[in-house]
């Protein structure tokens, strides 16, 4: 599959994850979210930027528990609860936020 964006063809896998994370830009995130009927708010953006930064630093997408632990340090207890994150990303914060952040699909294992 592919998305046409800014006269560029961006390849994705069957579930909508970018095949090349370097092709991502912030303008692409709302388009990726739209395919799941999700409108991104500033709260979503906090998580998306955080997940992307996590990936670029550690070369892995965080599983939910690591995500909440890492977010706690940056945003405090309230925003780092998995309940809060699931409210934002009902299909699973680790899965969905990584998709809109242009990152590879987390391993099936996790």
């Amino acid at each position: 599959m592919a998305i046409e964006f800014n006269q560029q063809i961006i390849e994705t896998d069957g579930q909508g994850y970018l095949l090349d994370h370097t092709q991502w830009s912030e303008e692409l995130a709302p388009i990726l979210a739209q395919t799941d009927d999700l409108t991104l708010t500033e709260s979503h953006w906090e998580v998306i930027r955080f997940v992307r930064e996590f990936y670029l630093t550690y070369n892995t997408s965080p599983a939910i528990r690591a995500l909440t632990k890492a977010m706690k340090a940056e945003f405090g207890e309230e925003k780092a609860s998995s309940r809060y994150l699931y409210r934002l990303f009902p299909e699973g914060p680790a899965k969905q936020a990584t998709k809109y952040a242009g990152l590879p699909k987390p391993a099936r294992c996790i």
Partner: protein
Amino acid sequence: MTNTIAILNTRAPFSHTNAKEALDVALITGTYEIPTSLYFSGDGVWQLINNQKPSELAVKDFLKTFAALEFYDIEEIYVDKPSLEQRGLAANFHIDNVTVLDELSFANSLKQHSIILSF
């Protein structure tokens, strides 16, 4: 009784996939809140040495993931001192919180765990 798991790494990072596969196990047991400790001896100590550039080999830089271990509650990371010495290596690692142990302390610490997996 609660199990604690020790993952013993004995191979250098790139020629085998063992290093990465051991790390994957650690990230999962950490995620599942099983107390997880990492041990490095023999050629396994090379996994922690500073200034490696896996991307020059077209290998995904999974070594960067070691720095995220704290988010998986993995804070016990031990290195066998004689293994460093035999290879002429200084305790110069790409992550913090690594404890270098002499031969006997390394063995005693490792063998406290109810489950030991070696890779």
